[in-house]
């Protein structure tokens, strides 16, 4: 009992001494009233500590929780300004996205323009023009260039060069281009679109277009868009000759 009492008294005395010290340390009178309020509350808490312990158990833990909670609240209220590097990173991301969108748009525009030009100039039906864009570094910025063009001609009806054995398993739609009714065979399904311009080997279902045609188209595209003829590929659907 006496030990407990002496502990309690020691606590009170220590807090009061602390309070006196703080009053000495405070720089001006204006803050004194407010500091005194807080210190007075602390002294009150110390004096009340036996009752508090009786009623609430461990109140210091509660106090600590309260203070940390307040600290967190304060830090939450702080405005988080994005740093310069954050902004730059975001700008870079946005720029990349914009570039990609612009490139996709450009690809589409190029494809339709090329198709129109080829149809107009060579007076041949063209099924599809697939332009592939690549990125090259010019100074600071990446600029797109036409990496490859793949021109697909519809199958001709009477083609003596139709050497590729048509696979009749997957018979596809009738092409809407041209006067003739053509039966298209396509075995490479999804691989149809992703043709590599560097790949000169005709895939199954495809064959090289007649040299005259392909040369004409190549020259046209090379002149009109400044693409190297090597990266232009002309292919033709392997149509059944019947």
């Amino acid at each position: 009992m006496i030990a407990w009492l002496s502990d309690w008294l020691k606590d009170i005395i220590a807090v009061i001494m602390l309070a006196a010290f703080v009053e000495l340390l405070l720089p001006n009178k204006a803050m004194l009233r407010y500091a005194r309020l807080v210190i007075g509350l602390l002294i009150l808490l110390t004096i009340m500590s036996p009752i508090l312990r009786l009623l609430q158990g461990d109140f210091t833990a509660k106090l600590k929780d309260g203070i940390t909670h307040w600290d967190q609240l304060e830090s939450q209220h702080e405005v988080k300004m994005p740093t310069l590097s954050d902004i730059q990173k975001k700008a870079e991301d946005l720029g990349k996205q914009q570039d990609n969108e612009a490139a996709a748009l450009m690809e589409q525009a190029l494809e339709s323009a090329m198709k129109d030009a080829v149809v107009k100039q060579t007076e041949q039906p063209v099924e599809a023009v697939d332009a592939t864009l690549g990125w090259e570094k010019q100074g600071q910025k990446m600029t797109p260039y036409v990496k490859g063009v793949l021109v697909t001609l519809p199958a001709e009806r009477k083609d003596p060069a139709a050497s590729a054995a048509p696979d009749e398993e997957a018979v596809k739609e009738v092409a809407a281009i041209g006067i003739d009714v053509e039966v298209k065979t396509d075995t490479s399904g999804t691989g149809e679109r992703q043709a590599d311009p560097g790949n000169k080997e005709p895939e199954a279902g495809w064959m090289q277009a007649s040299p005259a045609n392909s040369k004409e188209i190549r020259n046209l595209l090379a002149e009109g868009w400044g693409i190297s003829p090597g990266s232009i590929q002309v292919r033709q659907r392997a149509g059944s000759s019947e």
Partner: protein
Amino acid sequence: MEIIQIVGVGLIATILIIVVREQKPLFAFLLAAFTGLFIFIFLIGKIDSVIKVLEDLANRSGIPSIYLKTILKIIGIAYIVEFGAQIVRDAGQESIASRIEFAGKVLILVMAVPIISVIVETVIGLLPGS
């Protein structure tokens, strides 16, 4: 003998400020501000020893560390507010100085909120029938 250094710096700065003030009031203010900053930083290390004494006292008597933390925060806020307000006051902006002091008072009161909440909870718990 830091006191001689500090008083010397203060005197020299005062004379310089008086000389400069007639021609360039802006430089007089800057000189005053930097002298204040210098003395403040020079003495902030000395306060360290006082704080150590306080910590020692708190540890030995076994009062919760959270009390000491709160009290030290109050002292820190008071010093920073005083310093900033004084510089602003030197520049003649009395209204801004009083706003800074107001902010300091509010922040000190915010420290009291968790303590008040514990006391209020206890008092409510003491009341019968709750």
